């Protein structure tokens, strides 16, 4: 039992807890804030994986930018608490629930059956020097992963133009 394992357990548990809260919270704001918390705990897990830069980008992009926009929209619409007339059981809900549960069972079984890795590394010995640092990531992104990187930039441009087109007053 080393400290990494303890931390991982804590972060994993907290991630799951706050992710659950995202779904079960009554008000939209609470959901959004739970999602922010989820991102933070995920960032913690990234740090445990020696992906420091990814962790910081997780906070910067997801918690700092995207969720702020979510929050902004929720506040702007001033969404109140959810006012459904209680859970109703319809056929589609039962089928959907059953399908989701089935998928969960399958996935759990699949992951359960993964054989344990034969070798384990912990701490600094597991990663090359410079792993997860900004220069290392930059070099890999602009050479080896250039094609997906450029595709992502195209994706962002398309999403921006698309969002403007959709949000524009009627054409």
């Amino acid at each position, binding site marked *: 039992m080393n400290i990494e394992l303890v931390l991982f357990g804590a972060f994993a548990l907290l991630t799951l807890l706050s992710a659950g809260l995202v779904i079960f919270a009554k*008000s939209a*704001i*609470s959901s959004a*804030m739970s999602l*922010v918390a989820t991102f933070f705990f995920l960032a913690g897990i990234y740090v445990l994986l020696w992906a*420091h*830069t990814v962790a*910081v*980008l997780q*906070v*910067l992009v997801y*918690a*700092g*930018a995207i969720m*702020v*926009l979510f*929050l*902004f929209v929720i*506040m*702007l619409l*001033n969404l109140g608490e959810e006012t459904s007339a209680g859970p109703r059981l319809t056929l589609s809900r039962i089928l959907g629930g059953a399908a989701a549960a089935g998928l969960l069972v399958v996935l759990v079984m699949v992951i359960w059956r993964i054989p344990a890795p034969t070798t384990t590394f912990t701490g600094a010995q597991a990663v090359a020097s410079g792993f997860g*640092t*900004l220069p290392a990531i930059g070099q890999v992104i602009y050479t080896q992963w250039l094609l997906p990187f450029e595709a992502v930039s195209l994706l962002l441009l398309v999403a921006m133009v698309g969002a403007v087109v959709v949000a524009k007053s009627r054409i």
Partner: protein
Amino acid sequence: MKRTLTMLFWFGVMFAHFVGIMALAYALGGLVEGVLPGGSRLTNLAILMVAVVMGIASLLTVAERKWSSLMQNRIGPNRARINLPILKDSALVGIPHFLADGMKMLFKEDFLPATANKLLYNLGPMLAFAPVFALYAVVPSGPTVQVFGHTVDMVVATPDFGLLYVFAIASLAVYGTSLAGWSSNNKFALLGGVRAASQMISYEVALGLSLVGLMMAFSTVQLPAFVGNVTNELGLGNAATGQARYLWEGKIGGFDIGLPAWGFLLQPLGFFLFFAAAFAETKRAPFDTPEGESEIIGYFVEYSGMKFGLFMISEFVEIVVLSGLIVVLFFGGYHLPFGGEWLSNLALMREHGWLYGTILGTVFWAKVMFFVWLQLAIRWTFPRFRYDQIQSLGWKILLPIGLFNVFATGALVLWDPSLRALAVFGLLQIGLLIALTTSSALKSEEGHGGHGHGHDAHGHDAHGHGLPAHGHAAHADTHSGAHSGAAAASH
């Protein structure tokens, strides 16, 4: 004459404090490092962040009121006095007021609106304060020196992603304000929260973009690397790096002089963008629509006591942190503009590293104090922007200029890696800015002189826009003043 002497006296007091604190910080760091390797980071945390930053921030609450009264030809706060015989019932230029304010905050009723969301309401002030405060962790406030045989550096943390930490943490500050606005369940607070969120999101883009040029010029994102070190610092024989090196260098005797590679000279555009965007992030006038003291009071309208105090103090902490960042990124950090090499190679400095550190640390805080003053001056000089003006400034002016700056800088750095071309370009920009400012000032004077209808288009540009209907008298109240009025009304 008496006034000048008083000012000089208080300046002396201030610098004596900085010298003392920096000496203490280095000495303590050296001692702790002997007991616990790496422990100097903890003493840095305690001294730099808790003592210095928080100390300056609390004193700023008084300084802001004093400065505003000076600009408005008033006396300002002078009622709080400490009745000790040696002080002869002196007002101590109003300094005891921050103690009085603190006590007032602590003993006020901690009011919770009946319909507020309790958890988020309580979380709001913490989320507003914590990120701002944590930002200072990566700001290097003094050089790395040997004290009692141990290496001591004057920074709390040096993550390899440096500036990304700044962006990441700064972007979290918006949660505090918007949550406070939403959870109070008050229309005005919600308005303030929504305004704060939109404003901060908009300016984060320009904020990030404004520093890209600087990152390219110095090819780093780590703040200590931006500051760099002078040639042969303390006899270590290393070459000059970062902003401590000279673009063009000459020597007068042993004294080195030249044009340092300060960020401001390389990236004047980046500096102005960063300053404007960061100023908007602090939500202070002229970007104070989220507070809107004269109309909606702001996202903290329902808060009282120390919870309100946290919002207020976080604003002042932001001022200090922003000044620190500006100094580190654009104004050479703790380095002197010239003579740094000469100073670091004096025998006295080589022998006593802590002395060198203390001197440069004081230089750093002197620079920081200048920018703190500048921010106070701006806050009490400019009229408030309208909300739509804030948005169009962010998206239509700062963002395109920032993009232009990135491309221009990239091209120039590629063309001339010695950065001299970039410096020439930067100097040209500064010259252009000065010329533009002077010419528009001259034009507007012409516009106002003599003829009654002299209000031409240019005059309008310089003066007409954005003057809100309410004058400065409405602003004269400090936050706490405006707030206690509101709080009293709501009770």
